């Protein structure tokens, strides 16, 4: 549990840093561009957590750098796909890896074990297509990569969910919440069944203190103290 929350904190810090960097590069983005920027910075932050040199991390970083350069150069969405396709086709691994098709007898094809084996193969291929960099993974490391990827992806989703929900509640407090800190706490408790409260609560408190400190100068020290949590 301690491992997971430190992973989430690391992700949050890096994600916010990435978002700020994106905004400093390009001031006015439309909805689609901003969504892409949010996704890219989240993926990059996830790939840079824990310092492990897993295959999916490297592939994700490579993919985000391609997407980033496409985003900046070309405004239409049709062209980036062309560029990405060209890069994958030219890799030597793709040219060599031709699937070996064997012919099976009709009797063999109907056996249950054969069908089961084919199902496993088909679903392994599906899993490989879902994982970043999965196509060049062999089955030995696929399992470990999948588990690591799922853990990091889950942390990413939970942090994003907390941030977005807390921000939405902050901007548009619905009647049951009503802006009170304890109402928010109970709302979050029922939503997340006691888990991940501290993350959302700390985000909320930070936002709340920012709001009150904009009025008075003395609040500046508070703001700096809490900002250090985010940095």
């Amino acid at each position: 549990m301690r491992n997971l929350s430190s992973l989430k904190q690391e992700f949050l810090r890096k994600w916010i840093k990435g978002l700020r960097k994106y905004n400093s590069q390009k001031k006015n983005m439309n909805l689609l561009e901003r969504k892409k920027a949010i996704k890219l910075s989240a993926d990059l932050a996830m790939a840079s957590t824990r310092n492990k040199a897993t295959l999916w991390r490297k592939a994700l970083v490579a993919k985000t750098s391609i997407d980033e350069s496409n985003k900046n150069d070309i405004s239409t969405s049709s062209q980036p796909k062309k560029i990405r396709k060209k890069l994958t086709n030219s890799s030597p691994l793709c040219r060599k890896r031709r699937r070996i098709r064997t012919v099976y007898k009709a009797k063999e094809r109907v056996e249950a074990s054969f069908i089961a084996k084919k199902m496993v193969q088909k679903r392994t291929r599906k899993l490989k297509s879902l994982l970043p960099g999965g196509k060049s993974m062999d089955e030995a490391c696929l399992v470990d990569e999948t588990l690591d990827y799922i853990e990091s992806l889950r942390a990413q989703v939970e942090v994003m969910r907390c941030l977005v929900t807390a921000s939405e509640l902050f901007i548009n407090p619905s009647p049951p919440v009503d802006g009170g800190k304890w109402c928010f706490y109970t709302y979050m408790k029922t939503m997340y069944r006691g888990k991940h409260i501290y993350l959302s609560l700390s985000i909320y408190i930070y936002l709340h203190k920012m709001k009150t400190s904009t009025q008075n100068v003395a609040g500046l020290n508070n703001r700096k103290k809490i900002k250090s949590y985010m940095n």
Partner: protein
Amino acid sequence: MSSRRSRSRQTSSSSRNITDDQIHDLVSKLQQLLPEIRNRSSDKVSASRVLQETCNYIRSLHREVDDLSERLSELLATTDSAQAAIIRNLLMQ
């Protein structure tokens, strides 16, 4: 050149199927993560079912990331309230 080709063919045929040990390993670790498999009995889970659940789970997580980033970008686009300005300050500085 021919040695490289034969080596690649060899690895692809020998590692085409996931071994049973690896499936067992994956199942035991996924049981902690995936709620669906946790309810099932541990010794009767088939490999293809585990893989299918894993794929579905990863796909649903991807969809949720997409949805959340869309909501966040809409939030950051709102300019009418002071709270929105604070959020923007926090996330974009």
